[in-house]
């Protein structure tokens, strides 16, 4: 049993960047959004690495990365991502910021997935991050699954273990540092990944060159995606305002510091 693994993931501002909201013509946006360095959404990146690892271990499997985002920025990010693992890129040209609707993004992704030539839905595993680092709803994958008729869904996945009969075991994060362990009879299924257990793969220039042969045409033929936030009115979008007056305690004996900390703990 092989898998057709479709990883959904877009780009987000580099986590090291300080963000600032501005009012744009279509609603809230980020200041200098197109100038901010971007990365593949961290949880989606984990999903991509897990997908590639699964495809490597299950012969006949294939990985697609489906993304809704501004294609110019996607091209920059793909120069880096393409060196990590083999995949075929499918692009919908649209906004990747936080202030868009999960339902719109899911609809655009569904259209892109439906358009993948050679995709066998009986083998389909829909991967993605269980939440994004932009909108952070943890909703897009479930909606996408519903649109595609896939009702075996898992979120906060850290482990997928395939069996020879096509079934697989999944471990999903739940409250209190525990895992819910389930066995799914097989594809199709939706899996929203947490971090998984794989380290980030090292750059491989050969993989990068192979990927880029398909990435550039995919970017060139990207269809526009109608993604927005119709029906939502943002009354305020702001950075958290509280800056604390940090008391610096230095050149103080360890005993005094420890005593103060213990008093605070017990207080």
């Amino acid at each position, binding site marked *: 049993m092989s898998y057709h693994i479709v990883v959904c993931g877009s780009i987000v501002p580099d986590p090291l960047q300080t963000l600032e909201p501005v009012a744009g013509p279509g609603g809230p946006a980020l200041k200098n959004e197109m100038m901010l360095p971007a990365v593949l959404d961290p949880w989606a990146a984990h999903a991509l690495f897990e997908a590639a690892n699964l495809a490597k271990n299950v012969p006949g499997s294939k990985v697609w990365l489906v993304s809704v985002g501004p294609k110019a920025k996607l091209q920059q990010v793909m120069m880096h991502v393409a060196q990590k693992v083999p995949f075929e890129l499918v692009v919908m040209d649209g906004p990747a910021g*936080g202030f868009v609707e999960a339902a719109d993004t899911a609809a655009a992704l569904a259209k892109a997935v439906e358009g993948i030539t050679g995709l066998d839905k009986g083998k389909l595993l829909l991967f993605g991050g269980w939440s994004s680092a932009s909108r952070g709803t943890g909703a897009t994958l479930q909606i996408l699954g519903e649109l595609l008729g896939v009702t075996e869904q898992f979120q*906060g996945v850290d482990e997928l273990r395939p069996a020879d009969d096509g079934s697989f075991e999944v471990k999903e994060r739940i409250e*209190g540092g525990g895992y819910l362990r389930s066995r799914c009879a097989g594809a199709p299924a939706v899996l929203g990944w947490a971090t998984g257990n794989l380290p980030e793969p090292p750059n491989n220039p050969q993989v990068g060159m192979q990927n880029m042969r398909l990435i550039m045409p995919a970017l060139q033929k990207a269809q526009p995606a109608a993604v927005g936030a119709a029906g939502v009115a943002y*009354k*305020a979008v702001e*950075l958290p305002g509280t800056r604390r007056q940090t008391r610096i305690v230095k050149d103080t004996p360890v005993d005094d*510091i420890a005593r103060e900390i213990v008093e605070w703990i017990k207080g």
Partner: protein
Amino acid sequence: METILYLAHPEDNGALGRTALEALAAAKALAAGLGAPFSVGLLGGSVQAAADSIAACGAAAFFAAQGEALAASRYSTDAAACEALCRAAGATLVVAPATARLARCLPGVAQRLGGRVDSNCTGLTVENGAPLVSRWYYRQRMVAAQIREHRPWIITVAPCCFLAEDGQGGSASLQAVDLPAVTPRTEVLGIDAPAADEQTIRPEAEMLLVAGAGWTKKQADGQSHPDKAAEHILGFLDRTKASLGSSKSLVDLSGEGQSVLPFLTHLHQVGQTGATPRHKKGLATCCHGEEPHVVGWRFITERRAVNLDAGCGWAQGKADVLYVADAFAVMAKVNELLGK
């Protein structure tokens, strides 16, 4: 007029959890603000005890989806049950706790109902006769207040944002909803969780101890001392029953096969790709860094840090107190004092 449904599920012990009771408070306040009635919808293996525990909460009706298939958390059966509950109540607004179980299925339910979902909301009020929710964007780096025209509208409420409802027990009369036939292809095998005395992630704890990569660095003698670090960290957790969090850099070291602090996993990670804990107090040790760390710290009320850098970008402006000292020495003494 809006029709409000409070949607929840009992925990393994049959009772509603704290997050569920907080969401009930949010639903009640919303109903009061809108002058609209609200109903309760419960799903689970058996929900009578949970319903009885909130029987006097003021709900107009109690809808129940229960049975063996709903005893365990599974997308296909949970989504079908939640859809049936929403339809039975005729809900235009649904308020639910952001538990792992409901967070997984409710977006799909919104799609089935032709509605929309806003998840992990940290505020829910009424403004000009309409619900106004607050939620965070870009991983707790930006907060927005928003209203929505679309109905039905499902709102999940993040933990620790409302005071939990309490003491409204009685005897609830349940209305069973018709559940559609679902043939799940997923079998729930069970829950993997550490034994209680080995548990280091404690969402209910008053305090969070965050361990940073500094615990693994070379000390004054030119050697690293992971065993000593583990002794200090675990000793503190044992004495205080605090929860443990970690910076990404530290759990990544463990994940890359380095036996640094073997009790740390990605589950402990807070921040950009980790949890956003909500403990009352937080003590960060050997941490320093940039924006990704800050987001894991956002909802901790009282914050203190111990590290060797007086100009630490993480602590400055974000911690209430920064102790510039060797965390090994400080924590050893703290543990000694706590042990007395």
